[in-house]
């Protein structure tokens, strides 16, 4: 009989960018992932994407539910059935929430990895009464969305297709990371668009930029204030838009005057004339974008820096215009997750218990409630959960409560598609927090250090095993199709299934009426009068026709209905309504370097894929990047192992000496652990090289308004050491041609 072969359209979820491509299956197994057959999408594929068969068919993929039999973190398990696992989890969660209150239940998740939750996690938590949902989006894109709403009520998307100028604040899209953005930037440059890069390193994007400002890490807010100084002083702003559609201009101008270029040059280390040249290029481009960047999300002045990006867009007339940045709003043909989450059903009393609500409210329910009325007026629904990030608990506040039980105990912690232990600042505190739990559940495709600390580990599904229609979490205005091409392992579940089954076991079944993922997709697509089967037979992508300057009809979704250059919400909360730069706690003789962490490497997404042989070969060991002059001073050469210490913690990694680094800076990659050390080192070496060990989250290191930790420029020192004994597979040869593994994946 001929082998059966199928090809389907997929959206890759190996990283967060969501490339549209095709998955092939042969005899029930994913055999290849290849580029899309539409020319507009065909270049959007990277080597992580083509490695998908090796990931999804990997021999270490979790396929059976596991129940802990040893001490927590000992990594000893018994296999149990999915039904037994869900029965026990439901009973234990019910007992804990009854004893300590529903707010004692916290969830940490990554929508990128789980994709098809459809906000059922928030729905479940809201009906149960817990506001304590956290995610990596608190440090990456979700928080940017929330802070953008303070200025003009939505999170805009850059129109790279028509823009004349692209400003990259530390962001470095390249061939194998953020690939579609990289391709769009290349296309824009080919049309003649200018690129301005602000980065301490000579990054890939900086090498080809029209202007590269090598600012000191963590000084983005000061740089933006300098740009505004030039733009205001030279009259380069859109006077009519500012007059008609902005409030707080006079106060902002006064604040900006506190930042003459000499001061900004001194803070950022960039010459004043270069700052002025860049500001003019941006303001005079007649269509310019500052695309989202993870760099600004993770700084001491993050709220101000994100607000300053939004203010620059507005005052230069780049908001909701072609070639600028457009406010998309909710899909008109697909029910958004904001509605499915049932945020309106969580009581005001429980919302007020959200951890972070009092101290760092910018992305919590506290601000969401303040923006409810204008959001409903402009966008048609009161809760806009853009990129999942607009009504979250604060991660640091949650971990502190898990350790200290102050202001109340948090005793049940679920991690779905999220290696929480390595994903937030202050890893030792997260570890203590997890050791103080009565119930931990992990839902994963591979065993991770976080899952090793769980009571139950449930095997998850992957994108080739499920149907989906992606709407970019209400950030983009397109719908894209992802089709199942193979069946998941028999005992694996999607996060949709997990939350539905848990809800039915806990008396919430009436609120979870959907019988399958396709049933849920039918429901969501019903707003456009279609079923999933109809959508999937009709198209693989649907673009909403753009509308520009919608604010002329509706105003902006802010309390004033205008762009708030001085934020009334921040003012009402007792914060400075105007953006400012907060100086970094300085380097010292003991810690002379500026360390920046959270950096993504091409072969991996966050803490994942270190166990995938073909990807690990490309980067077998973690690298600390430093400048030649610094390496010489420290007596280090390429390939040495070094100990990097900060006041918070110590890690070891291999030295990579680069001329492209800025002298005085050390760059640390994000999320390193050693899956190969499972059974040999505690939690598979989770504390050896993880950047989360280095990052502090004490109050002096938190942004005031959001409470995000500072990852971009904290003091550190480096010294030569020896390679840790346990770490042995540190060259490409060690990961070469693991025939048994790759044969398993391909068979």
């Amino acid at each position, binding site marked *: 009989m001929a082998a059966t072969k199928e090809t389907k359209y997929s959206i890759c979820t190996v990283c967060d960018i969501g490339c549209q491509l095709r998955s092939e299956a042969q005899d029930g197994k994913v055999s290849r992932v290849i580029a899309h057959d539409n020319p507009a999408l065909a270049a959007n594929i990277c080597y992580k994407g083509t490695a998908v068969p090796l990931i999804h068919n990997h021999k270490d993929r979790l396929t059976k539910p596991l129940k802990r039999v040893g001490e927590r973190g000992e990594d000893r398990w018994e296999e149990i059935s999915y039904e037994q696992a869900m029965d026990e989890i439901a009973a234990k969660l019910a007992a804990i929430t009854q004893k300590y209150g529903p707010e004692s239940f916290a969830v940490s998740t990554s929508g990128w990895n789980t994709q098809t939750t459809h906000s059922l996690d928030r729905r479940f938590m809201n009906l149960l009464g817990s506001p304590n949902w956290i995610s990596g989006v608190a440090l990456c894109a979700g928080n940017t969305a929330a802070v953008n709403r303070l200025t003009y009520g939505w999170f805009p998307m850059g129109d790279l297709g028509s823009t004349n100028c692209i400003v990259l604040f530390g962001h470095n899209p390249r061939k194998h990371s953020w690939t579609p953005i990289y391709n769009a930037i290349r296309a824009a440059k080919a049309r003649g668009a200018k690129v301005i890069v602000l980065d301490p390193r000579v990054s890939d994007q900086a090498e080809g930029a029209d202007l590269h400002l090598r600012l000191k890490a963590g000084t983005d807010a000061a740089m933006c204030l300098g740009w505004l100084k030039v733009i205001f002083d030279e009259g380069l702003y859109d006077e009519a838009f500012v007059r008609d559609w902005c409030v707080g201009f006079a106060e902002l101008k006064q604040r900006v005057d506190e930042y003459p270029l000499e001061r900004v040059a001194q803070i950022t280390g960039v010459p004043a004339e270069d700052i002025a040249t860049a500001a003019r290029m941006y303001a005079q481009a007649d269509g310019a974008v500052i695309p989202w960047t993870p760099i600004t999300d993770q700084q001491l002045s993050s709220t101000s820096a994100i607000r300053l990006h939004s203010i620059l867009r507005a005052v230069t007339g780049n908001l909701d215009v072609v070639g600028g940045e457009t406010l998309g709003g909710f899909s008109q043909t697909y029910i958004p997750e904001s509605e499915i989450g049932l945020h309106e059903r969580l009581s005001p009393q429980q919302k007020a218990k959200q951890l972070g609500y009092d101290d760092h409210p910018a992305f919590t329910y506290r601000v969401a409630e303040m923006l409810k009325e204008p959001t409903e007026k402009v966008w048609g629904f009161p809760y806009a959960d853009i990129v999942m990030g607009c009504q979250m608990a604060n991660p640091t506040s949650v971990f502190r409560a898990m350790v200290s039980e102050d202001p109340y105990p948090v005793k049940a912690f679920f991690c779905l598609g999220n290696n929480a232990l390595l994903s937030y600042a202050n890893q030792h505190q997260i570890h203590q927090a997890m050791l103080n739990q009565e119930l931990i559940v992990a839902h994963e495709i591979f065993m991770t250090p976080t899952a090793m600390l769980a009571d139950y580990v449930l095997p998850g599904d992957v994108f080739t095993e499920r149907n989906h229609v992606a709407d970019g979490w209400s950030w983009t205005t397109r719908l894209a199709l992802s089709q199942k091409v193979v069946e998941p392992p028999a005992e694996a579940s999607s996060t949709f299934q997990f939350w539905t089954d848990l809800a039915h076991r806990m008396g919430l079944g009436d609120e979870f009426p959907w019988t399958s993922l396709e049933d849920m997709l039918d429901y969501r697509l019903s707003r456009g009068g279609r079923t999933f089967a109809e959508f999937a037979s009709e*198209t693989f992508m649907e673009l909403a026709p753009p509308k520009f300057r919608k604010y002329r009809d509706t105003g902006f979704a802010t309390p004033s209905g205008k762009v708030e250059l001085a934020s009334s919400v921040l003012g009402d909360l007792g914060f400075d309504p105007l953006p400012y730069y907060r100086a970094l706690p300085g380097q010292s003789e003991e810690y002379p370097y500026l360390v920046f962490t959270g950096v993504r490497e091409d072969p991996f997404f966050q803490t994942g894929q270190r166990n995938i042989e073909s990807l690990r070969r490309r980067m077998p060991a973690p690298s600390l990047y430093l400048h030649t002059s610094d390496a010489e001073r420290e007596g280090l050469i390429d390939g040495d192992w070094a100990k990097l210490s900060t006041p918070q913690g110590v890690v070891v990694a291999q030295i990579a000496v680069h001329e492209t680094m800025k002298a005085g800076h050390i760059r640390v990659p994000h999320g390193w652990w050693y899956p190969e050390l499972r059974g040999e080192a505690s939690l598979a070496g989770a504390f050896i090289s993880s950047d989360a060990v280095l990052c502090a989250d004490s109050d002096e290191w938190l942004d005031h308004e959001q409470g995000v930790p500072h990852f971009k420029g904290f003091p550190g020192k480096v010294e030569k050491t020896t390679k840790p004994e346990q770490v042995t597979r540190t060259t490409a040869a060690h990961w070469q041609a693991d025939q048994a593994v790759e044969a398993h994946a391909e068979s």
Partner: protein
Amino acid sequence: MTKRASLRHRYLECKAYVFAHLANRMFKKQMRSKAATVSAMPQDT
């Protein structure tokens, strides 16, 4: 904004609007032709 810039914006806005419609039609057409190709292929028995 100068008159020239204003005209350029109008042009780009129209282009973006038309592009979305044409792209949606192109995607649908591609799906239809793929379905037609598959249904014309001999089926395994």
